[in-house]
């Protein structure tokens, strides 16, 4: 089958790639663009480890076809920090020990960024429901929620 030529933007960089019509954006990011920070935990949209943004909308990249990236703005974990300067959310995850194994962390940080963009002042319950699509098996979520609430407060203070 003929490959499709796609022009898109990833973390601000103009990117073009060839893909099969059935390939997921997750596979292209990981295997063709070598952006392996986005993880695959289930391939069915249940775990959130592959969370990215497409035109600022939070999605599971395992459920997006690569051809759908045409003309869009893609945001991945690799674009969250400013060079080596961590974003507040990343910093708070470290301060609160909100990761153990770290496999869910990239997806969670992308999701938290989307949450705080939509709602800079979430309640604990709102944060828990917004992040219900991001599974973490190590932490019991306690320290993740603390990191999110602390990051929200810090970002509100800085705004």
């Amino acid at each position: 089958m003929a490959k499709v030529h796609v022009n898109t933007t990833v973390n601000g960089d103009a990117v073009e790639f060839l893909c099969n019509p059935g390939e997921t954006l997750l596979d292209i990011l990981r295997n063709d663009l070598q952006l392996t920070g986005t993880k695959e935990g289930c391939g069915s949209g249940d775990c959130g480890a592959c969370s990215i943004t497409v035109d600022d909308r939070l999605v599971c990249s395992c459920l997006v076809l690569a051809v759908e990236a045409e003309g869009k703005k893609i945001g991945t974990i690799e674009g969250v920090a400013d060079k080596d300067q961590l974003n507040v959310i990343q910093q708070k995850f470290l301060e609160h020990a909100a990761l153990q194994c770290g496999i869910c962390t990239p997806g969670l940080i992308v999701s938290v960024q989307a949450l705080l963009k939509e709602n800079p002042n979430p309640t604990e319950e709102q944060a828990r429901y917004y992040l219900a699509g991001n599974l973490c098996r190590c932490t019991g979520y306690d320290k993740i929620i603390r990191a999110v609430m602390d990051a929200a407060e810090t970002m509100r203070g800085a705004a």
Partner: protein
Amino acid sequence: MKNTNEATDASHYKYIGTRSIRPDGFEKVTGRANYGADLSLPGMIWGKMLRSPHAHAMIKSIDISKAEALAGVMAVVTYNDFPSVSSEIVATGEGTEDLLDLARNLMADGKVLYHGHAILGVAAISRQIAEQALALIDVEYEVLPAVLDVRDAMAKDAPVLHEKMYTEGLAETPNTASNVASVVELKKGDVDAGFAQADVIVEREFYTPTVHQGYIEPHACTVRYDEHGQSMVWCSTQGHFDVRATTAKLLHMSLSKLKVIASEIGGGFGGKTTVYLEPVALLMSKKSGRPVKMIMDRDEVFKASGPGSATRNWIKIGAKNDGTITAMQGKLHYEAGAFKGSPARLGGMTAFTPYDVENMFVECYDVVVNKPKVAAYRAPGAPQAEYAAEMIVSELAARLAIDPIDFRLQNAAKEGTKTIYGPKLKRVGLVECLEAAKNSPHYQQALKENQGRGVSSGFWFNIGGSSSVTLNMNRDGTGTIVEGSPDIGGSRASMQLMAAETLGIAAESFKTIVADTENIAHNDGTGGSRTTFATGMAVVEAAKDVIRQMKERAASVWNVNVDVIDWVDGVAINVGGSEKLSAAEICATADRTGGQISGQGNINARGAGPSFAVHICDVEVDKETGKVDVVRYTAIQDAGKAIHPSYVEGQYQGGAAQGIGWALNEEYVYNDKGILQNPGFLDYRIPLASDLPMIETVIVEVPNPAHPFGVRGVGESGIIPPLAATAYAVSDAINAPITDLPCSPPNVLAVIQANS
């Protein structure tokens, strides 16, 4: 939000007990850390497994001709491609396995034993072509009846999985094959005499379902076979030295011809202590002459990696009216999955160990069924047996009208208590945990309507084992800690704190790396809560070795005897004079005083300290639907000494969350033909952020005398108490006994309706 409690003991340490930023944190929050699926090599091809659609069947024939003819297919590998394998017990992760079982679990040998059992592997130039090739393979099966529960498996005339398996541990060796692999009895005192003294006796049988560790990262590896040089395996594992040992053994390679690199690991909980892909990938690499990558799909992880045993456990406990427990008895049945080796015996060893009771007797049955071969799951075997025992203990306390914590305190195991498995307990912290539970704000809080409370203790041994560490000092006085224990939950940070404390040099001065199998001597895997204890001990030994060398260098510079040199806060001091040399100064001039400085700590750690835990759970039950919400939860556990309190709390909270999932929702659902119905995270429902409250923690510190800083392992005990704490809370809320897990809405509703 409530703050978690600080450690109960104000310590005199400078670095230990601080909440430093983990050294691997930057890579992990930026996506730069590389996990099992993240390595690609030039010329690499993709491997996939063909898996059985049946739970139990003979393989009549396999036709791979169409698959082999497909353009892009590079290798097809079946069981017959393995070099000859014979029965031999080998160490894997937290226990031992029979090499022959391991090989037959990797790939079916003429007979499939569970839904998802691997039949062959295909490697092709893309994942898509490998999947297309699988669809072109014709396998002819003769389907056999499946056994899916210990009752069916032990029934007279049950279909037998292994024609040559005869029950071990019976007085007389049986002459017919059976699904019961072994029976083990553990005993102390005389339970009949004990029950004769009891005023109240409670007995019930409990069921716990098959559950999965549920690590978010699927099994994955990238390998390269090299006939003449050194073959390489990159994989996500808790123990890369164990992967090397079993893979080399299966493929008849010497250890020096195989290098295993542990990637960052995306969760394991005991499930990544054996091999599922690596030997097959190497065989495909050998056949194709290309590097091979394999990644399990999520449904393969559920179907064909090792879950935790389903169990049917009968428990009987008797007590006097004054609250003295007189006898404890159990008959435990653990599903092993398709091959022998469930942790039934560990269940028997742990079930009653929180209690100082004279008379105990447990029978442990290891039973094979047509489900995947079980693997270790966090305190393997303990949660199921202790769940049953703790449910009865709570019920007895209620019958005797004694507070459940007071009842546990009255009968609590302590230093000198003789265990059912033989040795007496050394200094342990169960009483301290129970007292902390009793004094917790949580325990003082009144319950509301439709709410219930459960309390449970939990015991796990922890292990020591082989750890090797090299501490290389740099010329500027900083250092690299080279360890071989995969960091599954922040252990690099703990290693740095222990090195810093020993040497008196700031923790940030160190970099910790997890070396591959050829850059450090053998290390047992990360399991049994051993890493901070045993590898930590090795770090301390390596640091002491560095101090010894530094003192010698200072003595040679000052031309004095080394005995007059003190080491204080990272500085050598001449006690007899005023000279001082810092570590940085000694390292900068090391070439002039005898060469570079490097410390070694290669140990087999003894004296692992058991960690007791006590949890309190409050639930609210919707009596219309049977839905259970956890409204407050407190986890209390003896850490011995918390090296990094945040990661200790994290272990308590993570264990609690997994245990709550086990109690409330998680279960493998099979149809009557043994086909798994819920191999995905949508239907196998692990706890979500929206399912849980904050999990309060109390770190109790009763130091382990065998560790330089008093460390006990903390990784496992925390998954034990949630089962009974949560299920008893449900029972308390609905005023009816719970015996079967999970307490999912339909199950709870059925109990409510049956008791109304």
